[in-house]
Each structure stands twice: as C-alpha cells, then as structure tokens.
C-alpha cells in the first residue's frame, strides 16, 4: 500500500477499498476520536446544534445517494423526512394521548421502522422517477412535498395540526433514556453521542454503497442513463433502489432530528426544507459522503452559531422573528447566496475546496 503520491494500487481490492490510503484510515480514526471526546469540551448549547447537524448529515447523505450519485434530482426530501419523523413519533407516542401513539419507545424499533416506512414511500414514488428525467422529476418531487404538506396539515390525529404539532419520538434503549439528564452525561451530551455514532454508522454504510456494484450503477445512470442501460444496468431497478435507499436515510434522519429538537409540527416540512437539503448536498459536494457531512454541519451547526453572533456585531439586525431585518431572514438569504456562489465558483463544494488544499500541500513546494 503506497502512502503519499503517486497513488498506485497493486490490486483491484486496494483500489476499491473503503479507505484507499493509510492517511484516510488514520484521519478517519482521528476524526471519530475527536467526535467522541467533543461532548467533554463543548458547551451543551453547541452540542445541541452539533446533534442536529449530525442527524441532518444522515439525511444529506441520503439525498446525495439519489441526487449526487444516481443523478436523480429530488426536491421531495422533505416528504421522506416527514414520513420518517411521523412514523417514529407515532410508534413512540403515548397511547393515552389524543394523538396516534403506540408507546414503543425503544430506539431499536422506531428508528429502523421510520427508515423502512420512508423507504417504502420511496419505492412508491420510484415509478414516476423511472419514467421521468431531469427537471420533470424535480417538479414532480416538488409536487410531492406540497401534497404531503396538505395531508399532514389535515391529518390532525397524527400530526397535531398546524402550529400545534406533537412531541417527537423519545429515544430509549432498553430503559436507558437519551432525552433525560443522567448520572454521567447531560441530555445534550447523550443525544449528541447518539446521533454522532449513528452518523458514523450511516456514513460508513453510505460509502460502502457508493463503492459497491450498486454505487457504480448509480454513477453510470447519473453520467448517461441510456448508455448505462445499454451496458446492462437495469435502470428501473437501480432508480428504484436509489430512491429506496435515499428515503431510508431520510426517514431515519427525520426521526432523529426531531428527537433532538423535541417537538415538531406539519408546518416544518415545506419546500424550504427540501431546498436546505439540496443546499447541504451542493455546498458540501455532490457525489461525496464526506461532502454531505460537511455541508450539513455547515448549514445546521456553523451557520446558526454564526448568525447568533450577528446582532452583536451588526446592531441593525434583530435577534427576534418580529424584528426586521432579523437573523432568520439573514440566514435564509445566506442559504440562497451560498448555493449560488458555490455553484458558480466551486461546483464541487466544500469537498472540492478540501481537495484543492490537499493537492496544494501534497505537491508543496511545487505548484504542479
């Protein structure tokens, strides 16, 4: 196994390995370690944002599988997030309350269930995806979000109704509660560790999918679907797989995000949520797992933390939704502006910036 350049692989297995260089292996281990000790170093408020970021990263990886790898533009991610979030909330909900609830609070039950129900929804949507390409598909998936928003608003026994909402799923692992402060760790520390560990699991799984036969079929479809079909990739099957996998990730992410947030309502699953995930994928880097994670952390953790400081720096920006202009408006504008700037100046996203830095130091002191 070679270290440094040039990257010569002596076997196919080495070329396709999960971590194809020693540096990557070491860096991954180091990052996981840093992630695990973060709760001891960082205040709870920031951990809460990090937990949201990790959970959102799972959803972003999902969107990246279908949009970045398989090239099927989906504006319907909010729909799948909603399916997952409500499946989990309904399963873990209190059977005695006025809302649908089954009282199964074990995370080992509701998390896979949220993913599977969302994946099923993905399979149901797939026939449209198989027939449509490009922008047609984007608009149909957008329609899905609008229809879902309507159904969720009307289905009050499940969702609690607009602006009222319901309690999200409570995370419980055989009696160990993640949503209550414990003897060793606080609530935010627990939730952060939970989402972080799950992010590592889902991230590795995503990378594994991407390098496998399925992932290569996805890339072939993205690059030219007819050509892929000609060389023997079953288009209908792999597009369906892409949607199912992506929705599974989205379902789990939806369940987790609102478990961290605690409470949610149907008014959150709008087109803007889909756009946020598109932004995560594009800002992070389409077609890369690490890019999705960077994008999600930037938009869910770094951006809210930065905009929190804005009112202090720029006094004309208010901190409350009633102020005009306020930080939430600034945040939304930043989403839009970041997407535009990245697409124009660095289409490979944060991952591309990282590649540039890496290549610079790899070749240093030579510029070629």
């Amino acid at each position, binding site marked *: 196994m070679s270290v440094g350049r040039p990257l010569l692989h002596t076997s196919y297995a080495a070329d396709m390995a999960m971590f194809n260089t020693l540096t990557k292996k070491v860096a991954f281990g180091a990052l996981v370690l840093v992630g695990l000790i973060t709760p001891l170093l960082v205040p709870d408020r920031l951990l809460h944002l990090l937990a949201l970021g990790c959970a959102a990263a799972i959803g972003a990886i999902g969107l990246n599988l279908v949009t970045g790898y398989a090239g099927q533009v989906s504006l319907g991610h909010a729909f799948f997030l909603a399916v997952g979030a409500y499946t989990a909330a309904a399963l873990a909900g209190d059977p005695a309350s006025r809302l649908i609830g089954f009282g199964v609070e074990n995370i080992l039950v509701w998390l896979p269930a949220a993913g599977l129900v969302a994946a099923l929804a993905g399979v149901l949507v797939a026939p449209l995806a198989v027939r449509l390409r490009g922008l047609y598909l*984007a608009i149909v998936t957008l329609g899905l979000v609008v229809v879902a928003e309507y159904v969720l608003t009307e289905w009050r026994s499940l969702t609690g109704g607009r602006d009222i909402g319901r309690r999200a799923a409570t995370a419980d692992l055989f009696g160990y509660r993640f949503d209550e402060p414990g003897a060793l760790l606080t609530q935010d520390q627990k939730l952060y560790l939970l989402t972080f560990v799950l992010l590592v699991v889902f991230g590795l799984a995503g990378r594994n999918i991407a390098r496998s036969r399925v992932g290569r079929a996805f890339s072939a479809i993205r690059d030219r679907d*007819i050509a892929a079909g000609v060389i023997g990739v079953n288009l209908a099957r792999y597009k369906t797989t892409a949607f199912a996998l992506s929705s599974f990730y989205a379902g789990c992410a939806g369940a987790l995000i609102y478990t961290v947030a605690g409470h949610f309502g149907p008014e959150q699953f709008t087109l803007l949520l889909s756009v946020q995930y598109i932004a995560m994928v594009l800002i992070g880097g389409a077609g890369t797992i690490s890019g999705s994670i960077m994008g999600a952390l930037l938009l869910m953790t770094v951006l809210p933390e930065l905009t929190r400081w804005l009112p202090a720096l720029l006094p004309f920006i208010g901190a409350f939704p009633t102020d005009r202009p306020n930080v939430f408006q600034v945040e939304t504008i930043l989403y*839009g502006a970041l997407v535009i700037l990245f697409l124009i100046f660095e289409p490979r996203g944060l991952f591309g910036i990282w590649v540039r830095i890496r290549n610079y130091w790899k070749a240093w002191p030579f510029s070629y």
Partner: protein
Amino acid sequence: MRALLEAMVRGLGVGSVYALLALGFVIIYKATQVISFAQPAFMLAGAVLVTYLVGPAGFWVAVPLAALGTAVLALGVERVVVRPMVGKPAFVVAIITLGVDVALRVVVNGFIGTDVRQVRDPWGLETVTLAGLQVEQRHIAMLVTATALVAALFAFFRYTRMGLAMRAASYDQEAALAQGVSVGAVFALSWALAGGLAAVAGTFAAVGSSVDGSLWLIALIALPVIILGGLDSLPGAVVGGLMVGLVQEVTAIYQEDWPSWFGGNFSVVTPYVLMMLVLLFRPYGLFGTREVERV
C-alpha cells in the same frame, strides 16, 4: 348547474393568471432550456412594487411600471448569476435560480412588512350578472388581460424579427448564432418577458385580497401547469393554466360533500394530483415534444 357554471368562470379567471405565470416559465425554458425557480420571487416583487406605485400613479400606470421594474430586475438576475452558467447542466442552473428565489423572497417580504398592502384595483370583489350568472368582475378582468397579453405575445413571436430570433434560438442555439442571432439578447429578453409576465400575474393574483408572503404559493402552481402542458409548449402553458384553474375551482365547490377525512381544502393540491396523473400516462405533458434520446 348554475354553481358549476359560475365556478367554471372563476376557474377561467384564476386559470388565466396561472397561464400568464406558466408562459414566463416556458419562455425561459425555450430560450435557455432551464426552469427558472425564481419566477415566484419575481411575481411577489411585481405585486409589491404595484402596492408601492399605486398610490402616486394609479392602478393602470402602476401595473405596467411594475412589470417594467420587475423585467429589469429579472434582466439583472439573468446577467449576474445565470449568464455565467451557460453550458452547465440544466439542473445546476435550476438550483441557482432556486437560490435566487429563496434569497430574493426574503428581501421582498421585508418590503411587505407587517401592514396589509393592497394593489388597490378598480374591481375588488364586485360582481356583475352575465347571462344569468353572478360573476366577479376581477375574474373577467383577469381573463381579458391574459387574453390580450397572450395574443400580443403570440403576435410578437410570429411577426417580429426579435420573435423570429427567439424561435430560432430555441430551435438550435448554435445555428441561430451562426445566422447572426444574438443569443445573449434572446436570453436577456426572455428573462425580462418572464419577469414582466410574473409581475402582471402577481398583481392580478392579489386583486380582491392583499399582497403577503404566501402569494408565491400561487406561482408554484405554475409548475404543475407547465408540466401538464409540456415544458416547451406555449399553447400548452395557456391550455394547462386554464385547465388547472377549472379543475381547482370545480373541485372547490364539490369538496364540501366529500367525506371529512379528505380534508376541507383538497382543491389546493388538485394541480399537483392532476400533474402526477397526467405524467404517469404522458411523460412529456399534453403538448410537450418527446425528447429524442441519443447515447
């Protein structure tokens, strides 16, 4: 029966607003092969501009002025963020316009503020009796305005040099370029036209009510309309718009009799349901050109 006919007139009125919006999308698509998700923001901007201009200038002057202003805004957006992306995949440009929409709408919403802003049109909710039917004047006005604009547009494309250039560019950009057509000017004009149409549509969508942030949801309905009619078909946009308007208003009068689990507001999502149904059978819409696929 009377209720049905009245609903159909309402549908044609609302549908003509959708048609105007959809025409903007289709004009941009034909020129640049991109769906501009920025249209909702232009629509909102146009309507808000009218609310500011209507005081000093009056409705009939404010609307053309606002259309002109929005056209200039659209022109600027095209020049700054869309032109550098010529030749990039359509999806990338579409997402850029989505970013423009998200950012621009926040700015425009800032101009709406917390007070009720009205376009102060001459019709309001007044009705008139036509052939025994009670019809709101605003729906007639929408239909008449849309008809006039559509006729003018089609004449423009059919009889003017620039219209010919636009048709040529949408047919084959390189060939048009070789014939001396300024494709850049075609891009700019198509965005300006779409912006102006969106402003007029936004104004008429706000007639009889007020301009607020949720107005852009109406612009989203233009998306199922263009898919329904076919992305690259101008007549398709008009027919699709009227169809969606009709279906929506007719559903609205019947939905009260439906079981309550259907929800009381199903007509809001009918455009999307209609779109999905049509797409399952005709993937390129009713009038769209089937894509020729080459490897």
